[in-house]
């Protein structure tokens, strides 16, 4: 209903295919292409610091989209997403280091292997839901974290493992400028895949399971199959995001994939809007930029309030917690909903009726 209100007059949908396109109007498509072109120009003007943030938003955004498909669209709560993210990072580094597979192929392969692991974890998860699933994935987060710290052959143990930079035809994407394009390419492909998935038969099955799983099952949707599939897809996104993360930092260590990162992923999709593809990106940007804003604020206040800069790490963590709580209380539909409201407001401006 909400989406229908924003279609300008003169746009008539005569087929189902037209009704489910990703971009409802030519203008919105033009804007998307324009945004993409502008993003391609970003490395030419942005500073190293800004590029670093943009790349972070890219790889976290990919992983968060996977979580949004699982949590927002299928309604299966996962508190162990960081573990899969980490698994992707370790797998890609391991494939590259141990078997000499080029990074270009190691990243998608890591995604596929993480999918396989996700499917294995998804089989028991297909039987339980809601609260119990949240607790089970919570436990699996701790189990996988322990595995990362212990499996020396795979992760390098507590020392971590080295991930070589992304390369293509002998050219190394080791600078931030060039790696930005790698992440951007992955981001666009993964987001188009995600948006397409949600308007396909499988995506509609996910939403049906979320809204009322008994009715969905009565209508012939295979409950277990789609729950496990959703887990697998979400792991694929996490694996790709994690692999991009690993090859960007050049170093993967188990300390990066704690329960706090899982919570941050959930925070991203809640702040962005559950079940919304674009919202995921907005939420990720919010979550990545929030600590930076806090840091800038603390540095400015540092002269006035002594001791603030020592507490920076705690202030960042507290801000994440507070942002999640405040969004859930005051804007449970997330930034995507706020964005729709702004669009609706301007559509009829200045006559609001």
């Amino acid at each position, binding site marked *: 209903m909400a989406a229908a209100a924003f279609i300008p007059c003169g746009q008539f949908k005569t087929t189902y295919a037209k009704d489910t396109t990703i971009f409802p109007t030519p203008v919105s498509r033009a804007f998307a292409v324009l945004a993409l072109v502008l993003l391609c120009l970003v490395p030419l003007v942005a500073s190293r610091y800004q590029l670093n943030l943009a790349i972070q938003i890219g790889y976290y955004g990919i992983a968060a989209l996977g979580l949004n498909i699982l949590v927002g669209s299928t309604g299966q709560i996962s508190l162990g997403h960081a573990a899969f993210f980490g698994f992707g990072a370790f797998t890609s580094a391991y494939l590259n280091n141990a078997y000499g597979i080029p990074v270009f192929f190691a990243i998608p392969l890591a995604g596929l292997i993480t999918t396989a692991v996700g499917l294995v974890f998804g089989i028991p998860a297909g039987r339980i839901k809601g609260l119990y699933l949240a607790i089970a994935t919570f436990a699996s987060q701790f189990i996988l974290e322990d595995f990362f710290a212990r499996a020396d052959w795979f992760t390098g143990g507590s020392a971590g493992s080295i991930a070589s930079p992304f390369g293509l035809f002998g050219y190394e994407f080791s600078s931030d400028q060039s790696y930005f394009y790698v992440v951007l390419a992955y981001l666009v492909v993964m987001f188009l895949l995600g948006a397409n998935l949600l308007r396909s038969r499988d995506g509609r099955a996910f939403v049906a399971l979320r809204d009322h799983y008994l009715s969905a099952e009565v209508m012939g949707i295979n409950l277990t199959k789609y729950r496990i599939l959703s887990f697998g897809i979400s792991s694929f996104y996490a694996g790709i995001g994690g692999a991009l993360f690993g090859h960007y930092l050049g170093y993967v260590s188990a300390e990066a994939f704690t329960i706090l990162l899982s919570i941050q992923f959930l925070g991203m999709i*809640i702040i962005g809007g559950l079940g919304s593809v674009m919202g995921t990106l907005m939420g990720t940007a919010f979550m990545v930029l929030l600590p930076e804003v806090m840091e800038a604020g603390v540095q400015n206040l540092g002269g006035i309030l002594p001791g603030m800069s020592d507490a920076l790490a705690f*202030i960042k963590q507290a801000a994440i*917690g507070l942002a999640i709580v405040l969004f859930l209380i005051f804007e449970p539909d997330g930034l995507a909903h706020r964005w729709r409201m702004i669009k609706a407001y301007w559509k009829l401006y200045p006559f609001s009726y």
Partner: protein
Amino acid sequence: MNTQLLVQLLINGLIIGTLYGVVAMCFVLIYKSTQVVNFAQGEFLLIGAWVCWWLLTDFGLPFWIGFPVTLLFMVAFGVLLQVVVLRPLIGEPIISVIMVTIGLSIFFQAIMKWIFGTWAKPFPQVFATKAVNIGGLQVQTAYVMSVVISLIIMVGFAWFFKYSRMGLAMRATAFNQQVAQSLGISVKQVFAMAWAISAMVSALAGVVVGMVNGVSSALSFFGIKVFPAVILGGLDSIVGAIIGGLIVGVLENMAEFVDGQYLNFGNLYTVAPFYVLVIILMIKPYGLFGTQQIERV
């Protein structure tokens, strides 16, 4: 086979297990009466212990004044939390409720670290003797007290829910909110009450653990260890929570024993309860004493 160590660990396990049981009971109390899964249970221990520590060291209050003041503060804190944060979320989907308690948990953890620092700080000496000798084994006095206090709390809970007016109102609300409301029970009050009691009793456990190990952010890990206990016992069973807590306490110490003596993995103490949790969820998701939910269309 080191029998001495085994017995020592077994007793440790039982003592820690009673504490887990008490915290798990508080968790179940909140879940049962307000349908909220409280991921911030460990932070109640943390906040209670830090507040008590603060009153005792910075203000130099004697324990018998500082401790009740802490409990009163926690009652107010629990009510405030329920009214300000949890009440607006009544009727929201389960993910929102889970996430709000997780958000609270990392918020309070960070704030406590900010105020009191990251390092463990020792509690002022409360009991004259540090350890007592029971059957040839050294047991910390605070632990002996904790077992006694835990037993008192458990009996108190049993009495409260069986005979007191408020306790009966809480049970009625847990059973069916609408019917309870139509009988004149203030559901709002019951919800606030559940959080207040839970926060207070958890803080008590926090103070006890703080006395033995010193107060640090490690206390909030109790809130995570509670999950294996409550899943084992069944999410909505208070008796189950106590038994689950005992089993988890003994289990992790047995894991420590097996690990230290034979396997040498190094970290089994922390992870073993989670393996048990996953296995229990697979074979018996409603736990030992939980009520099975049957969904009808």
